[in-house]
């Protein structure tokens, strides 16, 4: 019977299934047969029994006959003997019975002829016997006993009796024989009957058993169908509703395992990639595989062949059944693919401890399609959902874009509204302007008229000026003539006074002699004065002719020594002349004038020095500039008087004149002569501590243009007083010390200097501090005059100028600065209470700020100054061995304010760098003597070589290591390519004009740090793990100056390698790690975890650097093994303190 038969529900014409019917018929037949046989055997048994009974009756009858005969005999005899009636009666009863008995016997044996014959015979004998007996009795009765006895003795009766007895015996024997025969027959019949009974029973039992088996099979088949139907229905109901694959899988696995009584189960659904992913399990061990590929393993094979696999001997470890107490392999496995339309959608795998029944396999094959359809529809639904979500997200993005557009539109509208408004405003302003314009036109006309007036006035003025100049000339000539005229009589007076003083005649009193000497001395003074006035007027009238010739310095100094040594010796002063080695032996100048100035200075020095020493020092002050320094230890000049000593007719102190004599014109002449020689004369002095006068003259005389023109044009007719006119930057060299301390004594070469001209000391101090903060060195001046002098003396890079100064307006200072070629380029920022912005800006100030100013405005002012001051001439060094390349770079970078030097070798480059400060270096890596990298290292190593920003400009691509090496020195590396000239130009321009506000501070800080290297860092090795060049650069720059050695790793893997290498090497292990988080190949978190796995590095301090700002990021870092954490962009000081904290002591 196949299960398929159960599905055939077509009504049959038979009342019972054919099989059942046949069985029943066979049973009926068998029962009938058995009954028949039983009946037959019973019958034969009963016949045999009857015959036996009959035979027994015969025997009994025979016995009865025998006994009756005997009884009759005995009764006869008894009667014969006794004649007692009792015997007679007995005889009568017996004789009455005997014939009947004989008849019965005859009847009984009627069926047996042999016996019948014997019976007939016997009846005859009996009758005979009875007749005899009866005769006897009768005789007896009659009393004839003797007859009777005789008769008796005749033996007739006895013979009959014997025959009867013989016959009885004979018949009994025959009957006995017959009886025996019949008993045998009966037994046979009984045996047969027994066999029939047994046989029938057995047949029936067999039939009943067959029927039972058949019915049982039918019943269980029905049960299986019901079971499967129920299962299918339950499963279908479980799969109903919209289910995700995971839920579906879980439900299916639970249900199937429960329904089939499996101990373990798993459900896999097909994936896009053709593999199967587990979507549900029942009692699955945790580590079971979640993905099965078609063809792989049993499940895969089942999927591939689309056939249920029933595995009886389960491979070891296959789908083990586990509980908390242990695990065991299932005995049997059922792996059933679920397919719909020929496509396998899922695999169900079940493990059993028992044998799997065919019906269970059948059930599995039936539910597979339901499952397959469910899986397919679930997958379809999931796909649909994904598509829907995608569509929704796209819609969302579109909508957001639209919103963004709308917002942008609104902003545009707002902007255009604002534009409209401003246009309207502009229009009204234009109208206003037009009005003003017409007004201005009127004014212009007015001005034209004024201009005409002015030009007329100017003509007049020019005439006047000419007249004045002539008058001036007349004055000088007059003075020259006059002095000559004065000297003539004075000469006589002097000679006469000398004669008088000699008192040759001896007629003068001592007092008179003294008077005469006084007259002589006064005359001498007057003469000196007249000479000086003459000199001065000559110089001022431009009448001094210089005779420029080679002047031997040594000769000049020697003659001075000869002249002044005795004078010094007289005053017991030490006198010394020193010529520095680098001073050229000869200079081109006017030896007479030079000597005159120096003589003046030396005589002053000796004059104003009471004790100590006077020194003349000759040295080189700069390229082509020679300094003659006269130093004394005399009374010195107080600061407030230093500016007046050079002015004609003014001396430091009125009393000086009286004490030391002299006209007071000497220094004025000396200074004017110094200017005439193309140089300058300056003083540094402190009251009571001596003075230092410095005469700077060019090694080769060059006429100063400003001296060619007459003294600065006085803005008004010269004031009657002899106070100085408007201060002249050119003419002013006296330097007053400011009231607050500044950096003039600590000026570093190449530093950026700012001059603050401000009379309010408090505000000046503020500006000074701010300037220092911005990385400037600061000079302070409190007056216009000092300001100009300081500007001329120290050549500041920028100037902050107050307008309200005690002596002159700041605007005048600004004018002067802008008219002097030496100070013209210096940017000036003006700060003032009053509004002079217009005037200041007109005069060339770069900015203007109103007092009170706040810090931000000041910062802005510094910013402007900084950006402006960088616009001077910039120097670029191009290190390139290929002359054509060098030339092309030169042409690329050429500009008015850029000076380009090309070096073909590293040595040449180093030489250039030693001599000159460059703003930027463009360097090729390929050089004949050193590689670019080595050149950079040397530049960094040599202290006397400046290290400007370097741009590496190379034709070859760099490896990561090379790049890292270069990055330590160069912020910018450019690979030559089509667009590289553009970038080179851009970067160079950037470096040349960059406001490096932070760099100098950093550099200073670094210098400072380098001076006092920290013990915490000294010789400690820090591993920096970061892939960002900017950070590596910054960290090395911070750590290396402090004495730390820095190892670089660009990712976690390199970090581990570096640690291991250092651990194995001899030159020091890593003391601390700075770990970036976001890196290629291996990120920081992984790297830290890896590091901590090695027991050697359990305590290695690691500081994590990360761009993430959140608390949980910090926790992540710590969890990965970081000791501490600092967020980017990090504060250098904070980082340093962190390192100090964690660095192992």
């Amino acid at each position, binding site marked *: 019977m196949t299960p398929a038969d159960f599905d055939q529900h077509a009504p049959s014409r038979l009342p019972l299934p054919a099989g059942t019917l046949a069985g029943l018929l066979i049973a009926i037949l068998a029962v009938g047969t058995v009954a028949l046989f039983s009946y037959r055997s019973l019958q034969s048994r009963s016949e045999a029994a009857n015959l036996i009974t009959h035979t027994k009756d015969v025997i009994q009858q025979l016995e009865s006959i025998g006994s009756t005969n005997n009884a009759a005999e005995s009764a006869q005899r008894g009667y014969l003997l006794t004649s007692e009636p009792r015997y007679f009666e007995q005889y009568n009863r017996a004789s009455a019975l005997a014939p009947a008995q004989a008849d019965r016997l005859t009847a009984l044996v009627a069926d047996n002829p042999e016996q019948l014959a014997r019976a007939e015979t016997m009846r005859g004998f009996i009758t005979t016997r009875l007749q005899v007996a009866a005769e006897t009795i009768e005789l007896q009765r009659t009393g004839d006993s003797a007859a009777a006895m005789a008769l008796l003795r005749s033996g007739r009766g006895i013979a009959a009796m014997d025959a009867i007895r013989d016959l009885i015996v004979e018949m009994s024997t025959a009957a006995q024989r017959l009886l025996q025969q019949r008993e045998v027959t009966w037994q046979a019949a009984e045996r047969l009957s027994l066999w029939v009974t047994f046989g029938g029973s057995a047949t029936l039992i067999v039939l009943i058993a067959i029927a039972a088996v058949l019915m049982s099979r039918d019943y269980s088949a029905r049960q299986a169908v019901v079971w499967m139907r129920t299962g299918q229905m339950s499963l279908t109901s479980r799969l109903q509703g919209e289910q995700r694959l995971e839920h579906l899988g879980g439900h299916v696995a639970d249900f199937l395992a429960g329904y089939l009584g499996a101990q373990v189960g798993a459900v896999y659904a097909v*994936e*896009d*990639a*053709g*593999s199967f992913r587990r979507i549900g399990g029942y009692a699955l061990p945790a580590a079971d595989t979640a993905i099965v590929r078609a063809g792989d393993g049993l499940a895969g094979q089942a999927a591939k062949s689309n056939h249920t696999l029933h595995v009886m001997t389960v491979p070891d470890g296959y789908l083990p059944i586990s509980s908390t107490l242990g695990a065991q392999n299932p005995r049997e496995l059922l792996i059933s693919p679920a397919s719909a339309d020929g496509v396998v959608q899922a695999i169900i795998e079940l493990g059993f401890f028992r044998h799997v029944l065919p019906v269970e396999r059948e059930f599995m094959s039936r539910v597979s399609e339901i499952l397959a359809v469910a899986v397919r529809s679930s997958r379809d639904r999931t796909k649909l959902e994904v598509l829907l979500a*995608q569509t*929704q*997200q*796209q819609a*969302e*993005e579109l*909508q*957001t*874009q639209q*919103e*963004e*557009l709308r917002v*942008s539109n609104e*902003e545009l509208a707002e902007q255009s509204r604002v534009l409209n408004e401003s246009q309207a405003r502009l229009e009204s302003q234009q109208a206003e302007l037009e009005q003003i314009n017409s007004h201005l036109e009127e004014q212009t006309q007015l001005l034209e008229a004024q201009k005409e007036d002015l030009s007329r006035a100017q003509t007049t003025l020019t005439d006047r000026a000419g007249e004045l100049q002539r008058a001036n000339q007349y004055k000088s000539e007059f003075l020259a003539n006059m002095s000559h005229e004065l000297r003539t009589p004075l000469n006589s007076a002097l000679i006469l006074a000398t004669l008088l003083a000699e008192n040759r005649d001896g007629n003068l009193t001592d007092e008179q002699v003294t008077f005469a000497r006084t007259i002589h001395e006064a005359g001498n003074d007057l003469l000196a004065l007249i000479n000086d006035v003459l000199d001065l007027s000559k110089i001022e009238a431009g009448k001094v002719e210089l005779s420029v010739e080679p002047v031997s310095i040594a000769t000049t100094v020697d003659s001075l020594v000869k002249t002044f040594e005795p004078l010094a010796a007289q005053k017991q002063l030490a006198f010394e002349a020193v010529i520095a080695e680098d001073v050229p032996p000869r200079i081109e100048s006017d030896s007479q004038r030079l000597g005159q100035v120096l003589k003046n200075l030396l005589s002053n020095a000796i004059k104003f020095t009471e004790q100590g020493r006077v020194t003349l020092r000759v040295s080189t002050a700069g390229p082509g500039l020679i300094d003659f320094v006269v130093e004394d230890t005399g009374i010195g000049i107080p600061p407030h008087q230093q500016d007046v000593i050079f002015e004609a007719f003014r001396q430091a102190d009125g009393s000086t004149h009286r004490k030391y004599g002299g006209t007071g014109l000497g220094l004025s002449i000396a200074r004017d002569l110094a200017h005439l020689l193309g140089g300058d004369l300056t003083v540094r002095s402190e009251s009571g501590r001596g003075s230092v006068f410095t005469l700077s003259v060019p090694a080769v005389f060059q006429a100063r243009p400003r001296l060619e023109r007459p003294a600065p044009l006085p803005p008004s007719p010269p004031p009657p007083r002899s106070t100085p006119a408007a201060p002249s930057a050119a003419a002013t060299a006296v330097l007053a010390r400011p009231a607050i301390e500044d950096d003039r004594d600590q000026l570093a070469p190449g530093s950026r200097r700012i001059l603050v001209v401000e009379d309010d000391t408090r505000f000046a101090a503020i500006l000074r501090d701010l300037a220092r903060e911005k990385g400037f060195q600061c000079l302070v001046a409190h007056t216009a005059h000092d300001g100009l002098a300081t500007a001329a003396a120290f050549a500041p890079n920028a100037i902050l100028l107050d307008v309200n100064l005690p002596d002159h307006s700041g605007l005048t200072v600004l004018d002067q600065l802008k008219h002097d070629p030496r100070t013209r380029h210096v940017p000036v920022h003006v700060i003032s209470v009053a509004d002079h912005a217009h005037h200041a800006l007109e005069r060339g100030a770069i900015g203007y700020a109103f007092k009170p100013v706040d810090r931000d405005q000041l910062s802005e002012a510094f910013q402007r100054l900084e950006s402006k001051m960088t616009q001077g001439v910039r120097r670029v060094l191009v290190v390139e061995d290929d002359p054509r390349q060098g030339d092309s770079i030169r042409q690329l970078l050429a500009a008015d304010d850029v000076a380009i030097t090309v070096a073909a070798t590293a040595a040449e480059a180093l030489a250039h760098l030693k001599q000159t400060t460059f703003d930027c270096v463009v360097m090729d890596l390929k050089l004949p003597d050193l590689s670019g990298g080595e050149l950079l290292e040397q530049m960094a190593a040599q202290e006397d070589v400046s290290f400007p920003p370097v741009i590496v400009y190379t034709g070859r*691509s*760099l490896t*990561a290591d090379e*790049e890292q090496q270069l990055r330590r020195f160069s912020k910018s*590396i*450019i*690979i*030559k*390519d*089509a*667009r*590289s000239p*553009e*970038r080179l130009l*851009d*970067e160079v321009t*950037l470096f040349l004009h*960059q*406001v490096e506000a932070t760099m100098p501070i950093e550099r200073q800080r670094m210098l400072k740090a380098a001076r006092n290297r920290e013990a915490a860092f000294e010789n400690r090795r820090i591993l920096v793990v970061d*892939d*960002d*060049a*900017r*950070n590596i650069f910054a960290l090395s720059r911070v750590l290396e100056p402090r004495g730390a050695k820095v190892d670089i790793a660009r990712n976690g893997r390199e970090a581990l390698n570096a640690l291991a290498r250092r651990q194995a090497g001899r030159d020091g292990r890593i003391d601390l790690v700075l770990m*970036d*988080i*976001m*890196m*290629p190949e291996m*990120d920081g978190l992984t790297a830290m975890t890896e590091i901590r796995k090695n027991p050697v590095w359990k305590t290695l301090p690691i500081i994590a650097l*990360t*761009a*993430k*700002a*959140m*608390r*949980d990021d910090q926790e992540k870092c710590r969890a990965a093994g970081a000791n501490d954490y600092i*967020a*980017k*962009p990090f504060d250098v000081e904070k980082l340093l303190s962190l390192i100090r904290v964690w660095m192992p002591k």
Partner: protein
Amino acid sequence: MDTTAAEFDIELRLLLDAIYQRYHYDFRGYAHASLRRRLRSAMQHFSCGTLSHLQSRVLHEPEAFPALLNFLTVPVSEMFRDPGYFKSLREQVVPMLRTYPSLKIWVAGCSTGEEVYSFAILLKEEGLLERSLIYATDINPVILHQAEAGVYDVDRMASFTENHRRSGGASSLSDYYAAAYGRALIDPALKKHVVFSDHSLATDNVFAEVQLVSCRNVLIYFDRDLQDRAIGLFREALCRGGFLGLGSRESLRFSGHSGAFVDVAREDRIYQKREAA
């Protein structure tokens, strides 16, 4: 605004605050109009009647947050999306990038990674990939994981190929992926040059100096302040002369940082940083 809308907005702000404090994801600077829509669909998904209810669930059921995160972020991307953008990059940006010895590129808001791989392919075609490193960042770790896997539906490849061709791609896109079982797997060799990391433009800082930032269709979800913050980060991250690429509907025009950039390809929203670094 009616009362319910006002209430919704209050709840919205409370929810964003709660998320920030609980999970450190800062959506407070996101454009509210879009958030409103996305949260309404999230409410449906979580079967929550009100945002307060949703807030309570998100606070007390940490496993609910990743699901909500998927609603709050909008991962829409394709390879070589807006081919004109990539064409302009090839023509105007790549020649400048060649002059750098090593390149770093930041794809901010990389979503499921299509754009990251587009960049990798573009650089490969231009011979620059070997010296490049692409940082791909996003706030959603689930999406980032997908991006890292680099597996896409093979059905999408046709349109990607068309985009790639129109972007001026010289090679065949199929050289860079392997298709099997209805999926396209991006060549793992490309991934060697990509670092995937989660990074929030709202809370985190700059992590490296880069030559190119591409952040497309991310700023549209931000309000003006957050847009400014993000652009500030890009400005800080970019080296001098570095490039910034934005989405087709995004612009620097209204940003406070607009002065620091000049147009390179106006239509394709490519800008160059022109201030001193």
